[in-house]
């Protein structure tokens, strides 16, 4: 079922001195239970598209529909709290919260009780194949792979429908890269998420069900 539809989206960065067209007439759609990869060179507009899909910004032209509803008309904070979540290359965990507290954050933000959130956070961390002791550790005590898995657990704590990943394996070794790809694939196929991964890593792109190529702000289907 179609989750996200992008229709003729343009995005222009405007500064005091110049304006840069980052996206040009981008149209595509994403379905649930599917993993997508968007590949392209640095500066091609991949991250811009991701930020628009995450509701962190709005297109200059065109529209993005999530389950048929125009993102422009939605409460975008609520959208990020309940529907879409993002995993970043640099993990971006709260540095002063433990792994468990990091995963609890989106749940507590939604109003879940602390005890309930703590139990669910432990489950999610365990689902990521991480040992229980990780729960009490702060991000700086964890390896890159562990941090990224905690970040994915936090994304799943949102209990949304869309998982957006911006170069999720960019800072990881090959073993951790393989694990993360497996996890993302499982999330798409077992949890029925729409997983959109931005990458320039061939192996990650190959694992996806569909691949798009982003070049100079234009999106094209790379392979069905």
């Amino acid at each position, binding site marked *: 079922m179609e989750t996200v539809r992008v229709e003729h989206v343009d995005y222009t960065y405007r500064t005091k001195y110049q304006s840069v067209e980052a996206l040009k007439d981008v149209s595509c759609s994403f379905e649930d239970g599917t993993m997508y990869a968007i590949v392209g060179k640095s500066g091609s507009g991949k991250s811009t598209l991701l930020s628009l899909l995450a509701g962190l910004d709005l297109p200059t032209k065109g529209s993005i529909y999530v389950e048929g509803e125009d993102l422009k008309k939605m409460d975008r*904070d609520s959208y*990020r709290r309940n529907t879409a979540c993002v995993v970043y290359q*640099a993990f971006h965990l709260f540095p*002063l919260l433990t792994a468990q507290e990091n995963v609890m954050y989106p749940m507590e933000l939604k*109003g879940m009780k602390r005890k309930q959130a703590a139990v669910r956070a432990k489950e999610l961390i365990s689902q990521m194949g991480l040992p229980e002791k990780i729960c009490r550790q702060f991000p700086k005590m964890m390896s890159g792979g562990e941090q990224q898995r905690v970040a994915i657990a936090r994304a799943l704590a949102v209990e949304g429908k869309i998982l957006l990943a911006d170069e999720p394996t960019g800072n990881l070794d090959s073993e951790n890269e393989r694990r993360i790809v497996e996890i993302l694939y499982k999330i798409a196929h077992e949890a029925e998420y729409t997983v959109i991964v931005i990458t320039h890593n061939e192996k990650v792109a190959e694992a996806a069900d569909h691949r798009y190529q982003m070049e100079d702000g234009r999106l094209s289907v790379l392979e069905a």
Partner: protein
Amino acid sequence: MFAIRLIARNVSRHKYKSILHILIGVLTVLILDIYAGNMDSTGEQLAKLPEVLEVPAKISVLNGSLTEGMTIREDRMMGVRESEYVKDPVFTVRMKFGLGSFTVEEYKDNLNYYGMGINAVAGVPGMKREDITFLEGVDESVLETTQKVCILDADLMEKSGLRLGEDVMLTIFYYRYALEGSEIFIEPLTTDTYRIVGQVEIEDYRGGWVPPEAILPLDCVREAYHDQDIPFFADSGSFVVKDPFQLNALKEQMRYDVTFLPVITRAEYRYDGNALTIMDETFIRSAEALQGNLSLLRGMLPFIVAIVIFIGYLCSYLSLQSRQEEYALMRSLGTGRGKSFFLLFGETALVAAGACLLGSFTALIFFGTKAEVLALAGALFFLAFLAGTAAALLALYRLSVMEMLSKND
């Protein structure tokens, strides 16, 4: 609950930053306490100045050479005594007297003593309340009445075999001053019976005349003048300015309503007590100095507030520099702008409140600063500091969340 827990957790986990902010806050609060305390004590000194520095006024003759033994018109005396700007007015009238009843012709053998009519103990220079032994149930307030009573010199009482509580007949003569020139006449005033309500032994008499051997209430003597249709004149007068901050109103009243003139040193020598000298120089100088200090301190207030706002801004700005990513992350997880602002603002508010309490407590222990000053300085610090924080936080609104989260990638 979640937000409060998160704020408390962040404050405790940002241990060193929090301690540093609290220290900066405590120092700022202490400086504010010293400043506000200074302002308060200066204001208090100014308010209490009239109690500490009384402004006395004295009636004299026009050229200022005489302050007793004058003729102060009754209407002028009453003008002073009834003025709302005057406190503790003291007037005296001098007289001569003899014991018992005698005629004018017999004065040489009988008119041997000096007496005074006064309305307050201070009327007799150097006499203190302790110098007088009053009859039981009587005190110095009797001098403010018209009762026919007297306080006699202890030696005179002993010599004459008189005792407290007894009645004594006195024949009183008054001083009449010539309208022109410097002649003084002594003429009969009254012969009456007075109850002895006190005996006096003046230890440290400081007057220019002979010390009085009988003291009568001023208004009792004044009534005797009235009974005999003799115009009454007081022979000395002084008072204290009730509210020195209303000096101008007092001066105006004394000049135009009571018709006192300022001292003119070149004026002719006369007995007429028609000049008034108000010794207000010290008071005015002190009040002006205090008012100057107070104005200076008040003038500094906007700068002090600006400095505290700047400190609050700087602390928050520097602290937020390393927390921009955290803010972006909160936003990317769906924390609304308002809630993100509240979470970061709450941390600063908690630290500022801690600094405020600690600083106020330190000021209370070490400087003994008053509670209301502490509250004022604390509130000023808290509000100004948070205003600075709010300004620093608003700058975060301009940052792009995605840019901030991608820059480390």
